């Protein structure tokens, strides 16, 4: 585990706090007091961003991680623990490390691992509001399902003292919408992007071997193509997920253009019928007791784990990807639309509400959608819409995920570009053309890889049919009146009988969210952490 902090406030001596002691193992910094009512561990990382742990005095220890230079775009996590149990957690705008906290009965747990935090709490409660937020999701939300567990998100601060937690939200909005920004000059794009790539390389590659996640899209190859202009890099390691046709040929055609320069590419071929990489494959293939998991995060966890293992074996300490590329060219002309609030937000989200939702759930959704902005949301609109818990598969292997496109300056500039430059990432295609990169990478006639088909075929596979069949018969959400499993079963039968289309995809995705929710509810009930009821008293907080 990369980070874990446990503080048992009822056991802390208020009048005479015990001294904090810092020790080290080969892999960890460890902070604790004699009674172990405070225990904190953070993994040592010797590459950017490096971790640190410093004992200021007997009463104070500071630890976290940071990139070498402060300022915009820097990554940091800064935690201060006092002997009296007061803890402050501050974080950057990238929030690469997933971070959750759970507080119940005076016992605080903070970790990058969802399972660690959930397992630390004996009694979990569900907010009714989050049932609506999960089944009719919006990217500005990140419900954890459980009332006791919260995310610490971009630019937020968590302060816990005397067993009471406070979140201080972001102080300013960092990711503006198109309508709020002055128009940008398209000619500057080439210099701005090159500079972003250069700074990324200088920050993360000077002290560490690195690798790439390389798909067939426009975003992930930006950095590898940029590097092709220099000497061949025998030390590169790239990992690519290769889908079935009609995407496979196009992906291979593109990747072959890099093979001569970066020969250490590894391709993970996925087949629609193959179980190993399917979403939730671990549920089908292991005999272990299922664990609670974050319902939004785990669609391609199995694929990511394969790539992370490969890169770890190659010795990589950094992995570059194209996350954030979609955000750069997003088009949002109103805050209501971006945040999913007010009447526009209700219309959009009620459309995405599962077709098997009951009137009770529809009313609940209407009640939970805020009419105006509740607090400053620093989140980007697309790829950072859920906390990147999947980053853990790399971070736990001492590999730091980095995207040169996850860049606030570049985002602001791109969002100010005239519409025709953002549409279909037109300006990025012009950039590729001006650079004389292989035309395959920006040729619109070649299909970009799309995981939708793979997702659909997985959900209609035999394994999923068994899961659906079981949970249709044993559904907590049906019994509580939020969904109608008769309609759900009929929709699933219809999806099985027809070939995948847009309508099927939307239905299957909401079914997947329902399935993940049921899996978590059943697991928590089995462990005794959840009593099987949906407490309305948890509805009021938004």
């Amino acid at each position, binding site marked *: 585990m990369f980070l874990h902090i446990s503080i048992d406030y009822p056991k802390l001596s208020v009048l005479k706090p015990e001294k904090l002691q810092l020790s080290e193992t080969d892999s960890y910094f460890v902070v604790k007091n004699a009674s172990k009512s405070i225990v904190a561990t953070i993994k040592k990382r010797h590459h950017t961003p490096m971790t*640190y742990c*410093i004992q200021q005095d007997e009463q104070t220890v*500071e630890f976290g991680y940071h990139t*070498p*230079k*402060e300022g915009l775009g820097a990554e*940091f996590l*800064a935690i*201060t623990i006092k002997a009296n149990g007061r803890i402050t957690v501050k974080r950057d705008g990238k929030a690469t490390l997933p971070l959750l906290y759970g507080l*119940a009965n005076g016992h605080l747990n903070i970790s990058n691992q969802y399972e660690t935090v959930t397992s630390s709490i004996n009694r979990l409660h569900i907010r009714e509001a989050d049932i609506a937020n999960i089944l009719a999701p919006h*990217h500005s939300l990140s419900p954890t399902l459980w009332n006791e567990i919260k995310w610490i998100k971009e630019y937020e601060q968590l*302060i816990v003292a005397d067993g009471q937690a*406070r*979140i*201080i939200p972001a*102080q*300013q909005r960092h990711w503006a919408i198109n309508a709020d920004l002055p128009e940008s000059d398209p*000619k500057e*794009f080439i*210099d701005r992007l*090159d500079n972003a790539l250069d*700074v990324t390389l200088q920050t993360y590659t000077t002290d560490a071997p690195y690798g790439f*996640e390389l*798909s067939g*899209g426009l975003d*992930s190859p930006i950095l590898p193509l*940029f590097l092709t*202009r220099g000497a061949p890099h025998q030390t590169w390691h790239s990992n690519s997920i290769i889908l079935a046709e009609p995407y496979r040929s196009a992906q291979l055609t593109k990747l072959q253009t890099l093979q001569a320069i970066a020969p250490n590419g590894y391709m993970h071929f996925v087949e629609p019928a193959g179980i190993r990489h399917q979403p939730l494959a671990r549920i089908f293939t292991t005999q272990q007791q299922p664990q609670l998991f974050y319902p*939004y*995060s785990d669609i*391609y966890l199995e*694929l990511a784990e394969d*790539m992370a293992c490969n890169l770890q074996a190659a010795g990589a300490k950094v992995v570059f990807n*194209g*996350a954030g590329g*979609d955000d750069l*060219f*997003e088009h*949002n002309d109103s805050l209501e*639309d971006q945040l999913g609030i007010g009447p*526009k937000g209700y219309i959009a989200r009620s459309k995405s509400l599962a077709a098997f939702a009951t009137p009770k759930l529809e009313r609940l959704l209407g009640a939970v959608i805020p009419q105006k902005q509740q607090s400053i949301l620093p989140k980007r609109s697309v*790829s950072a*819409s*859920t906390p*990147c818990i999947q980053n853990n598969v790399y971070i736990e292997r001492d590999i730091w995920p980095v995207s040169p496109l996850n860049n606030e300056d570049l985002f602001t500039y791109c969002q100010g570009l*005239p*519409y*025709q*430059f953002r*549409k*279909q990432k037109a*300006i990025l295609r*012009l*950039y590729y*053309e*001006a*650079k004389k990169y292989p035309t395959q990478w920006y040729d619109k006639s070649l299909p970009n890889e799309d*995981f939708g088909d793979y997702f659909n075929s997985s959900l209609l596979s035999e394994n999923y049919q068994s899961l659906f069949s079981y949970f249709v018969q044993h559904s907590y959400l049906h019994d509580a009146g939020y969904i109608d499993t008769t309609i759900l079963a009929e929709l699933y039968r219809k999806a099985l009988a027809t070939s995948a289309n847009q309508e099927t995809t939307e239905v299957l*995705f909401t079914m997947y969210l329902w399935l993940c929710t049921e899996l978590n509810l059943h697991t928590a009930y089995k462990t005794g952490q959840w009593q099987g009821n949906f407490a309305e008293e948890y509805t009021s*907080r938004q």
Partner: protein
Amino acid sequence: MHTTELSPLETFGETEPTFPQTVDIPPHENVALSNQERSVFADLTAELSANPESPPRGVSMGKSTSATDVMTIRHS
């Protein structure tokens, strides 16, 4: 309820993160951007600028297709 969201004006303790030390990263080893690239790019953007297009109202264009991008909400 154990969590309270505070107004941005409310402050607790120090507001700046503390680091053990910070260092300047070395000057960029910039892969030189040729004037020819700049010139080609300027021509290409000028061509597109000459064909302005009005954006659709209230439409988000983003679509995530990356295996490692866990944007599940717009997954499809």
